[in-house]
């Protein structure tokens, strides 16, 4: 699955962590360092599997754990409309 950031969001990296604003609900969502990196990697080109590979390389985490966490995080982002599935 390839994801894109929704155009209905605005985001900034503040003090090293991403903050996302839903322009529809005006709700903020602060991300931890791993979530921030996943958010940066969601670019409409990389697949979720490729994002997991990057997280495994850059953070001290097993492939299984990273895959589980990234999948859960991506589901949450999709549910909140912060990202869209591009295929």
């Amino acid at each position, binding site marked *: 699955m390839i994801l894109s950031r929704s155009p209905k969001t*605005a985001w900034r990296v*503040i003090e090293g962590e991403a*903050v996302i604003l839903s*322009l529809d609900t005006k709700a*903020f969502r602060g991300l931890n360092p791993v979530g921030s990196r996943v958010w940066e990697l969601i670019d409409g080109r990389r697949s979720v599997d490729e994002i997991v590979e990057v997280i495994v390389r850059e953070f001290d985490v097993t492939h299984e754990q990273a895959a589980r966490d990234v999948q859960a995080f991506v589901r949450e982002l999709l549910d909140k409309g912060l990202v869209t599935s591009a295929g």
Partner: protein
Amino acid sequence: MATTKADLAIEFLPDVLARDGLAWVSAASASMAPLIQPGDALCLAPVGVERPGVGAIVAYARDARLVVHRVVATTPGGVVTRGDGLPEADAPLAWTRVVGRVTAIRTPAGRTLDLERRPWTFLEGALGRVAARPARGRLAWKARRLPFHLAAALFR
């Protein structure tokens, strides 16, 4: 992350203005009294190609706070602003720092002042010219404040 929700709101204000075309913010200080009082809601619109002139009320970020003051002079690169209730003008400001322009004021009692309609389009310029004048001494200061109190009485 030590950033507060208010900091974030200021940070993202340009995004909201670009997307929605307006944003409501709450006045927190009396620097624009008597026309704008703490607790008033202020409608901001993006600054377009036609930049605000003398008398317009604009918003900009300073020290992680949103400042809403009146334009008292324009320069090629920006503006000089001043709070109606303050004796001194602010430091000159580049246009790029101006987040938006106040187009309406709504009091807690529900009265709304549309600054884009007459007579306010005319009064804004007049108030800007008064605000631009230095007021030395107590009497001059009181005289300078009079038009702002009249404007507030008309609206509030």
